[in-house]
């Protein structure tokens, strides 16, 4: 949806929908806040966890109603995954996994709202010229999540193994404690530790961002005429159905990797 007087080209269309609403908090470019990403994420979190809190507060040990049964199913699902991978006290890791799953799922699910409908609301309802509605298609969000998990991983490595134990692990695994293979060990671990948050965040970002782009390309085809509308609409329907899987799957993968990283941090070799 281009502004009046501006020609609608694929570049302006996609650019428009993928431009963040920014607020500058300081002089350098680092101090730019993506208001849309952050606000949408916060709202989704409040809705999602507010709902869970509401159910958990009134949870009964007796016969649950349908709402509670649904939430219990979700809890059981997450708890089962954690139980299968993480052997230890789940008092923190299980809620962490639940938070990751629910939040990422909701943020991904913003993809289900057609971009132009979302833009209609944000432009005319909120009077925001630019508003990118899917927080996980912003690399800041995925990096924030992955680096937070990374920080927790380092924290638990130090907590469980101690500074000495962790350093020992960095230099003595996977090839053994021979003096000659120590640099190789360290190099291996370094690559592993760098690739973990990178793959963790970029996998989610790439999937959701690519999904958005494909939707937009189809919508642009739909804007070219009747034939384009029919084929574009049909293909977009197919892609939307497939996207349901991607949204849920990416949230699931993100959660599983979080649990795996936590489990690895707690296990010494």
């Amino acid at each position, binding site marked *: 949806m281009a502004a009046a007087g501006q020609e609608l080209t694929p570049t302006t269309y996609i650019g428009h929908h993928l431009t963040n609403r920014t607020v500058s908090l300081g002089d350098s470019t680092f101090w730019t806040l993506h208001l849309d990403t952050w606000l949408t994420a916060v709202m989704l979190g409040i809705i999602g966890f507010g709902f869970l809190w509401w159910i958990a507060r009134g949870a*009964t040990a007796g016969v649950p109603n349908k709402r509670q049964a649904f939430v219990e199913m979700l809890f059981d699902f997450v708890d089962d995954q954690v139980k299968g991978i993480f052997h230890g006290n789940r008092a923190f890791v299980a809620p962490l996994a639940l938070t990751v799953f629910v939040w990422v799922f909701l943020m991904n699910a913003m993809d289900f709202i057609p971009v132009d409908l979302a833009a209609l609301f944000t432009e005319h309802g909120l009077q925001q010229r630019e508003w990118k509605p899917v927080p996980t298609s912003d690399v800041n969000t995925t990096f924030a999540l992955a680096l937070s998990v990374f920080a927790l991983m380092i924290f638990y490595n130090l907590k469980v193994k101690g500074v000495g134990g962790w350093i020992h692990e960095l230099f003595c695994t996977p090839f053994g404690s021979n003096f000659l293979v120590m640099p190789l060990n360290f190099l291996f671990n370094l690559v592993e530790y760098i690739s973990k948050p990178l793959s963790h965040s970029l996998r989610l970002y790439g999937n959701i961002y690519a999904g958005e782009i494909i939707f937009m390309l189809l919508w642009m085809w739909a804007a070219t005429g009747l034939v384009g509308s029919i084929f574009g609409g049909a293909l977009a329907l197919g892609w939307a159905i497939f996207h349901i899987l991607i949204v849920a799957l990416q949230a699931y993968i993100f959660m599983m990797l979080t649990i795996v990283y936590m489990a690895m941090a707690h296990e010494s070799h």
Partner: protein
Amino acid sequence: MNLNVTMVAQAVTFFVFIFFCAKFVWPPMVKAIEARQKQIADGLTAAEEGKKSLESASKQADAAIAQARGRATEIVAQAEKRVSQMIEEAKNAAKAEGDREKAAAKSEIEQEVSRAKETLRTQVATLAVAGAEKILKREVDAKAHADILSDVQKQL
């Protein structure tokens, strides 16, 4: 990729939500689920115990019934024995009574017979005397021949 303060904001938000979840959402829900699991487990255990006690109770009942049946048979046997004994006693008593009555009747009959004999003898004596008187055509002095008469009477 323009990384900026959004990342920091999202990370802070993430930790706030993790804290919220770990503090207010996860524990009550898991508590409720675990409480229900315990209830169900307790219920199943109680059902198992109930089944066991039912089994033992029915076993006890069977034993009691068998015992009662045995006792009833015993009582019936005793009663039958007693009845046959009583019948036997009654029979014996009746027989004894009959014998006694028979004996009494017999003795009475004997008495009657002897009395009749006596009477007959007296009458026969009188007849004989009368006959003799007629034969002799004379009066027999009853007093004078009393010894003869009593002798005849005795011979009869």
